[in-house]
């Protein structure tokens, strides 16, 4: 069963952009609740606002209206700097475009979030090597992103997202830039993490993927939550 | 070359990357302004020297005794009246005049200053002519005037030499003797020359009978044969003083030679300063190259697109070359403007202070030269990146994300 602790909550959240004279309503008042230990998917066609929703859930952006709660704390008005620190501790990101830093090796990329939390060099490197092993890249620590395949880069990204032992892993279209087989490998990694107790939030446009592993799926369309489906778990 | 659209495209790009363009222009601007300022001051100094050596001196030869000090002060070796007569007798010498120098003590109430006093023979304008000045105020001395002196222009103003300026007919104390001020000379333009005292030869000899050696002798000679006459004078004096060649205790130089020596030294100093200035331009060129490299990198894909729709390599080259040259042009124009304003203000101040010989001078070539220099600097800095841009592989560029 899903835990009762609320990790992330979006309450009546709206996000508007100004494009010249027009107002684009990317999100028009949505409510999302993510509980501890859940595997939540946010689904929708392109333009549905799912990426925007992901950014807000991950506190990468602030809402125009509504509130966002992280561990029951209202973070809607937090400063960017404070959000960043919070983010680093509690949330791990995985992006569609991998978004690794090109000038750093795989190991260094994984160590980076720890650096921002003040960990010592030896601690960082040790943990990074552990995480590399966990994603089956133990021998590739000194490689640069441009020396790794797409799948390998995404695995490094996963390892990075675990660097600070976050509560939540946010994956934005994690398989978007990968072939089907590799994509499946990646998602099974996520499912492994889920089994170990991590909260996973995944954005995808692939319904099959969404429904295979998720406990909860939010279906978005035109900036609103169209429906919510829950999976019965044994 | 580059068509109208090409120019428009380039200018748009420069405007878009305003920050980068700004800093690049700033760099070259500083370099050019610096060069402009130094060159104009250099021109000013050279023209001053030219002026002094001007027409009035083309036919003059100066003879002085050798010595360890500034010529004329060390009286170990002498040039006497008999030497003067000998020089006068040399073929090609039209007339001669001798001038005695001495350092004297001037006093006004309780202020004491030292100055050079220079003697001349008023009925022979040769000495004053060689300085290319005339009496501006008051009367020139006559041969019979004793007890009267003419002063350099700085004596007139309060605070320049003495706290109180002198006026015509004022009394002036020289070596504790009283003299009357008969007149003032025009300003020569440098503080040294404008602070001298002039007296007629007879009066000098009366006051300082122990000075028997001329500080200098000036001869007006045949302009066309000036080198030959210089040799003749040397021979004649050698004979008269019974000295062997190579062992003379005097030297004979045409004014032109003398000034050449000064010009040479001056050119060296000014040249050195300008070289330091050019270093700033070199660093500015490096900044420009950097900017252009960045521009090429940024527009990598765009260049691929341009080539795909038919731009030739040479056209890409021209576009980038034009951009960097244009930056140079703007920077150059601004640099010249700033340099001009600064030097103009400096000029006004210097002239006001009586140091007009230091004032900067302008020249059409200075403006044109600096502008061309700026454009060329821009162009050269941009050449390498432009060539690289022109050689970009179209397909690779289009694929670039």
């Amino acid at each position, binding site marked *: 069963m899903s835990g009762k602790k609320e990790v992330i909550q979006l309450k009546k959240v709206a996000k508007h952009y100004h494009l010249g004279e027009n107002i684009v309503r990317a999100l028009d008042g949505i409510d999302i609740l993510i509980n501890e230990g859940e595997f939540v998917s946010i689904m929708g066609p392109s333009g549905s606002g799912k990426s925007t929703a992901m*950014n807000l859930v991950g506190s*990468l*952006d602030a809402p125009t209206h509504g509130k966002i709660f992280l561990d029951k704390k209202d973070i809607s008005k937090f400063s*960017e*700097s*404070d959000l*960043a*620190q919070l*983010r680093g*501790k509690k949330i791990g*990101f995985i*992006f569609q475009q991998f*978004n*690794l*830093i*090109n000038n750093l090796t795989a190991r260094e990329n994984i160590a980076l*979030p720890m*650096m*921002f939390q*003040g960990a010592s060099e030896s601690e960082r490197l040790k943990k990074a090597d552990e995480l590399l092993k966990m994603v089956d890249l133990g021998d590739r620590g000194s490689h640069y992103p441009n020396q790794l395949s797409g799948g390998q880069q995404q695995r490094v990204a996963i390892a*990075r997202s675990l*660097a600070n032992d976050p509560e939540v892993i946010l994956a934005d279209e994690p398989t978007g830039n990968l072939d089907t087989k590799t994509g499946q490998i990646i998602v099974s990694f996520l499912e492994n993490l889920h089994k170990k107790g991590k909260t996973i939030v995944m954005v995808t446009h692939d319904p099959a993927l969404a429904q295979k592993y998720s406990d909860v799926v939010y279906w978005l369309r035109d900036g609103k939550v169209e429906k919510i489906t829950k999976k019965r778990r044994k | 070359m580059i068509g109208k659209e090409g120019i428009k495209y380039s200018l748009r790009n420069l405007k878009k990357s305003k*920050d980068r363009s700004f*800093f*690049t222009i*700033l*760099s070259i601007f*500083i370099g050019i302004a*610096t060069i402009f300022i130094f060159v104009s001051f250099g021109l000013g100094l050279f023209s001053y020297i030219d002026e002094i050596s001007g027409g009035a001196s083309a036919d003059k030869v100066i003879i002085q005794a*050798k010595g*360890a*000090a*500034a010529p004329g*002060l*060390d009286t*170990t*070796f002498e040039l006497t009246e008999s030497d003067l007569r000998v020089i006068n007798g040399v073929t090609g010498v039209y007339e001669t005049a001798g001038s005695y120098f001495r*350092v004297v*003590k001037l006093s006004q109430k*309780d202020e004491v200053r*030292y*100055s*050079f006093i220079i003697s001349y023979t008023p009925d022979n304008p040769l000495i004053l002519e060689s300085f290319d000045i005339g009496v501006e105020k008051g009367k020139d001395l006559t041969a019979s005037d004793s007890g009267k002196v003419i002063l350099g222009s700085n004596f007139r103003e309060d605070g320049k030499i003495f706290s109180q300026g002198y006026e015509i007919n004022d009394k002036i104390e020289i*070596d504790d003797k009283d003299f009357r001020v008969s007149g003032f000379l025009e300003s020569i333009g440098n503080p040294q020359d404008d602070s001298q005292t002039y007296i007629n030869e007879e009066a000098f000899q009366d006051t300082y009978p122990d000075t028997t050696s001329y500080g200098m002798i000036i001869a007006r000679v045949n302009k066309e044969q000036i080198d030959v006459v210089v040799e003749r004078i040397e021979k004649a004096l050698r004979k008269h003083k019974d000295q062997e060649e*190579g*062992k*003379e205790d005097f030297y004979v130089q045409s004014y032109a030679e003398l000034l050449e020596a000064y010009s040479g030294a001056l050119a060296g100093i000014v040249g050195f*300063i300008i070289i*330091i*200035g050019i*270093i*700033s331009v*070199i*660093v500015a060129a*490096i*900044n420009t*190259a*950097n900017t252009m*490299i*960045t521009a090429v990198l940024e527009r990598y894909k765009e260049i691929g697109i341009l080539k795909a729709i038919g731009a030739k390599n040479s056209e890409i080259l021209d576009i980038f070359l034009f951009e960097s040259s244009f930056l140079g042009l703007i920077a150059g124009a601004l640099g010249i403007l700033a340099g001009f304003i600064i030097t103009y203000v400096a000029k006004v101040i210097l002239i006001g202070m009586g140091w007009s010989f230091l004032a900067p001078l302008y020249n059409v070539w200075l403006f044109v030269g600096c502008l061309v220099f700026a454009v060329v600097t821009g162009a050269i800095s941009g050449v390498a990146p432009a060539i690289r841009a022109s050689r970009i592989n179209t397909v690779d560029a289009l694929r670039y994300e």
Partner: protein
Amino acid sequence: MRADHFFLSLKNLKHRGLRTWLTLLGIFIGVTVVIALIGLGNGLKLTVEAQFGVSSLEVITVQAGGLNFGPPGSGVSIPLDMDDLEAVKGVNNVDYAIRRNLETLKLEYNDRLVIGTAIDLPEDKEEADVFYEALDLEIEQGRKLKESDTNKILLGNNFLTNKVDLGKPVEAGDNVKLNNKSFEVVGLLEKQGSFILDNIAIMPRTKLDDLSDFGDEIDMIIVVLKDTELIEETKEDIEKVLRKTRDVDEGEEDFDVSTPAAALETVNQVLTGVQIFIVIIALISVFVGAIGIINTMTTSVMERRKDIGIMKAVGARNSDIFLQFLIEAGLLGLIGGLAGVVFGSIISYFGVVGIASFLGTEVSPSLDIPLTLITLVVSFIIGAAAGIIPAIKAAKQNPVEVIRG
């Protein structure tokens, strides 16, 4: 945390390749020129100071007032005389007051002629010894002048090493002609390092008087003190006394009493002034180099928008980003400055050696440690300062806009 930023910055700089090198080159050139000019200027000052032939004894020099465009005694309106000398001798704390005359002579040797300066040697043995000591004169070849010597002279070191334009060196025992009279050279001095002293001729006073007939005129008085601690007071006492003998009022003096410190001071001021002027010009190029850093950093920030966004996404605060870029900019300045200091020091070293040998002085250029350290610190600061605004812009980036891709 700081150290991490440092290494991260270094890594980033390395990756930027050519453009980083060019930026470094700009600063490097500017700093090289500044350091070289400062070093050369200092070397020049040292060389000129050495020309003054500073001796081990602290002496006070008295000269008659005038326009000093040459060796003491030229350009003087009313020279010093024996009354002045006696008066100075009588001043408290004065051990010796020795009259000096410098005359210009024609020196002939080996069928060549040079114009040189001769200085007289006091007749009194004690004064002569003081003279040798005051000017630190030692004999390299031959011997010193004896009281009994008449037509004998000493010559400066340049005569021995053939640096005077006479075609061949002059040795002890040779004869030279001074103003057409023959003299035997009994000794040649060791190298002093001062232009005047290395080219000088020394002869007994009476002989010099014969040649130049200066009689009672004195070009300069060298005053040796009993107690050098009281040098300033003695200077004032001498001035008082001379005012009386020359009958001038205070403020109207027609003579000049100077301590070695004062004379050096003036020359130093002029040279320093010139040095500062030239260095300011050179600083312009450093300034332009700093503009290059601003340029490079601005571009760098723009290019790394994505990386900045990623870093913020994984927990970097604004201050982390700001520091990162600030340090990068500072490093650019520091590295360029370091290279510039090294190169500039090398140039100034060889330059000073060159100048010294040209002027015939013994000057050993030394490494100016404080200057070097200051320059390094300042280079870093200049770089960082140039990078402040770009760094602030970097810190302000919004991660979402960037990662959205």
